[in-house]
């Protein structure tokens, strides 16, 4: 089983590297949005209610860019699986003498590796343009750990969608929804400064806790509550998403 998972994970990673058009949306668009947000709204740090101890707006926005990138990574994983289903390669995997769950776990293992790379990219980008990671290397590692867990969860959601929809264009149509859930969270802006009803919804949106959990080591030292909340949100998303993807796999196998 482990061997199958690792082999499929290696394959998925290789495919990502060979198809840069799938990588671009994960980092390019969030980077551009980060630049536009920081360039356009840096003065909002002076608004009443904005945390006063933040080094800069870029520091605050990094977690939003990471969260956005991880969500898009999940959609990308879903598109990749949907293309395999459409092209027939998925059936080839099903016909192989490996545990069927390895097909999903292999993809998720690759997604978690990519997630770490995404986090590293944005932290490096932030540092290059003047951000500080207040909690230092331990803080960066915490951000990476939360990000990897969340990325795995988003990947599982993508896989679940692909197994249900069986069409890459349907999975691709989810892109706008990514922004909907992101906007009704505190990923981009402090919750107390959001407009209604986003402020209310953000209270219950796990992405708020996820983003805040990754943000805290960047703008503060390591504080237990936000970081643990972040881990809990990521773990919750991952657990639910993996369960749903396993169910979706069972449903697909039931059809074959």
């Amino acid at each position, binding site marked *: 089983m482990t061997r199958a998972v690792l082999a499929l994970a290696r394959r998925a990673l290789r495919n990502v590297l060979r*198809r840069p*058009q799938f990588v*671009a*949306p994960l980092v*390019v*668009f969030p980077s*551009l*949005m980060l*630049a*536009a*947000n*920081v*360039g*356009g*709204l*840096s*003065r*909002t740090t*002076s*608004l009443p*209610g904005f945390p006063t101890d933040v080094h800069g707006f870029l520091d605050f926005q990094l977690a939003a860019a990471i969260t956005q990138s991880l969500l898009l990574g999940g959609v990308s994983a879903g598109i990749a699986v949907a293309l395999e289903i459409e092209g027939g390669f998925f059936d080839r995997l099903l016909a192989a003498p490996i545990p069927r769950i390895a097909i999903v776990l292999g993809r998720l293992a690759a997604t978690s590796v990519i997630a770490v790379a995404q986090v590293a990219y944005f932290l490096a980008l932030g540092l290059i343009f003047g951000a500080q990671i207040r909690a230092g290397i331990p803080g960066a590692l915490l951000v990476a750990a939360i990000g990897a867990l969340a990325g795995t969860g988003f990947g599982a959601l993508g896989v679940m969608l692909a197994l249900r929809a069986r069409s890459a*264009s349907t999975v*691709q*149509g989810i*892109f*706008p929804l990514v*922004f*909907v859930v*992101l*906007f*009704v969270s505190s990923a*981009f*802006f402090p919750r107390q*400064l*959001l*407009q209604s*009803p*986003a402020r209310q919804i953000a209270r219950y949106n796990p992405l708020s806790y996820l983003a805040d959990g990754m943000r805290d080591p960047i703008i503060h030292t390591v504080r237990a509550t936000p970081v643990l909340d972040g881990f809990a949100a990521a773990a919750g998303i991952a657990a639910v998403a993996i369960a749903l993807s396993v169910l979706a796999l069972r449903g697909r196998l039931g059809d074959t």
Partner: protein
Amino acid sequence: MKARARVVGALTRRALNEILRVPGAALPGVLAPTIFMLGISSVFGAAIQLHGFGTTSFRAFVVPVGFLQSASFAGAATGVNLARDIEHGWFDRLLLCPTPRVVLLGAVVSSASLRALLPSSFLLAVALALGVPFPGLLGILLAAVLVMGLAMAVACYAVLIALHFRTQQAAPLMQVGGFVAVLFTTSYAPAQLLTGWLRTVSRINPVTHILTGVRQGFVAHVTWAATWPALVSLAGMLIVLGGLAARALLRTGA
């Protein structure tokens, strides 16, 4: 001349088939600008407290960004469709007809301008329902002209990319051009509130003038002083990008 106009009409109708006959495929593109507008205004709405916006409604300030995004998405989608036509051989069929290639380009980009009206109209309806002030008939007409023109300009850029790479895999490259052009302007805040680098970029970016032209009706009223730079910028973009696209099309097969 009439024959060429018929060709443009026929190809434009065909290009709109994707929206009319596969509505599900076009839905994300129609909804995206509205989602973005609602999201940005919900998230960053408090920014209106900063001085310099010239309006009390952040939503009214960012709605025009959504219009330009409609144009950008429509233009990019046109390029992606052309890339698909190239991959599937349909484009060869167009190249084989005796219609001048410049006319074919005209047909492709004109479909983008019409396509941009769909998400724009939806955005306008939602914005007005949420209390954004009506920009007046002149403001709407001007916005329509600028949106359609920008869609054509972005379509020319996307066509250039499609002809160079000849594959749908270049789609992100087509999308990023319009994305950058629209966002790196006074999209979220007036020029005096932007950081140094973005202020400089927005000053150079011709889309900033187009955005100002669309925005003026929503935050104040339409004036010639804010209109003519928008029209000139648009014309310049169409001439440059249209010229490059036409040149690339004429050189296809060389």
